[in-house]
């Protein structure tokens, strides 16, 4: 569960070009809900995601994840609870390292890093089995370098890596924006499958209104750093793309 209380975030605080990216926003996201944030560029949705991830620390307000106050915790202290998939698959993976090495790094998210060899045969087998469930035929290529894969394949693996070890919140930052339509569809299906199977509380930023309706439990429309519309579970099933589209005018 995520609780945001009265969050305000300023960029360039106290300078002439001060920007209020988030303006007194409060939001409560219950356990295992899939929330989609939509809104025009500069509406504050990416900032909100950064604030939850801890990449930015809110100027004001409180943030709790599963009841733990993380208002002032930087990103590396939140990574135990929060996992993130970036817009660009190259941001979420180390290209020169092999697939299985990337997964080992993902597995370290909840662990202390030591001088032990964690990348053993047992781990390799586990990676192979999990990758096989994606149905992309990558399970026999785990020693290939990450950089040799296509964007779609890398993003699918990013998703699997993000949920590899225990997490409370999954953040998806326009996960399909850098992909072709076919890959985008596959990646969204995989994301949905992983989220539902593991009951993960998810916040996704997207410009794909179709995806918002198809996969989201709840759609939040942001405007000028505030929540302009909040469509709950019962409403998302009846909503049309055109309804959402009209919000942008």
């Amino acid at each position, binding site marked *: 569960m995520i609780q945001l209380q009265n969050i305000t975030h300023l960029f360039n605080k106290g300078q002439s070009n001060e920007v209020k990216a988030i303006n007194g926003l409060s939001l409560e996201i219950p356990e295992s809900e899939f929330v989609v944030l939509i809104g025009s560029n500069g509406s504050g949705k990416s900032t909100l995601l950064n604030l939850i991830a801890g990449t930015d620390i809110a100027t004001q307000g409180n943030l709790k994840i599963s009841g733990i106050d993380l208002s002032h915790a930087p*990103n590396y202290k939140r990574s135990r609870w929060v996992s993130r998939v970036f817009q660009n698959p190259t941001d979420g993976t*180390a290209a020169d390292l092999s697939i299985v090495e990337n997964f080992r*790094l993902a597995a370290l998210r909840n662990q202390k890093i030591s*001088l032990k060899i964690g*990348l053993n045969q047992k781990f390799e087998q586990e990676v192979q089995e999990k990758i096989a469930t994606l149905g992309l035929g990558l399970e026999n290529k785990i020693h290939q370098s990450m950089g040799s894969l296509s964007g779609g394949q890398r993003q699918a693996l990013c998703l699997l890596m993000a949920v590899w070890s225990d997490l409370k919140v999954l953040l998806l930052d326009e996960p399909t924006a850098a992909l072709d339509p076919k890959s985008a569809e596959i990646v969204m299906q995989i994301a949905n499958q992983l989220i539902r199977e593991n009951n993960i509380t998810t916040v996704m930023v997207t410009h794909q209104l179709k995806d918002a309706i198809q996969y989201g439990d709840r759609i939040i429309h942001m405007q000028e750093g505030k929540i302009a519309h909040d469509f709950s579970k019962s409403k998302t099933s009846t909503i049309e793309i055109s309804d959402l589209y009209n919000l942008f005018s």
Partner: protein
Amino acid sequence: MDFIVAAILQGLCFSSMAIGVYLSMRIFNIPDITTDGSYTVGATVTAILLTLNWNPFLLFPIVIFAGSLAGAMTGLIHTKLKVHPILAGILVMISLYSINLKIMGRSNIPLMNDNTLLDISVFKSVLLNETFWISLVILLIIVKFSYILKTDFGLTMRATGNNEKMIQAIGVRTDNIKIAGLALANALTATSGYLMTQYQGFADINMGVGIVIVGLGSVMIGEVFIVIFKVKLISIKLLMVVLGTVIFQMALALTLMIGIDPVYLKLFTALFVLLIVSLPKLGLISFKS
């Protein structure tokens, strides 16, 4: 012939430093110039403690510690004060010049007594002895270091140089990894100073000048072999870097052998590295595997 043998041994002495350069420049993507200073640090500590009749085994950990301290300083300046790594390295290197000179008390310390590592008699022949001890240290470094790179910590180091953002997202403070990595790289460099001082029988305040270029050139020659032989195993990659270092020294020995004034040695070193660096541009070889 003696010329070539000396070049090989000298190359082996340098190879620890080349592995250090491989770590900082290739794995971390940080051009670390501390190398020039930390090499002399290794030499200074070795020479001073040997003249105080220390056991060469006992002083080795101190050399490692002193080298890593130099690297950690550069790491701290770079990560905490956000100074460009090249500048951070130059600052530490230039400070070390004074520190080394102060510790040495003069610009050159000859080793008069026969109590160096290379004098410990295993074989009858002096040459075999030297080869044995130098190779043993290098072998130890390759084994130990390739193990480290395979551990979770090593994996994190490699990924930090590759995609820092990702590593931060999994909760690693990359600053600390960089400081540790630079400490490790410069400990390796100081080890070269340790070996070279004992091999040539003296430490000199200027022996580190331009040494980072030797390291870089050696690494690049090694990478040519890594590409040609399609090396995947990290331990073999390190072995190729050692091979690159030896070949570099042999090439320099050859230039001296054909009668070129030793005054031009540094100039030829630079030209040689320039040649290797420009090989891909000249379309002769590609470093990207």
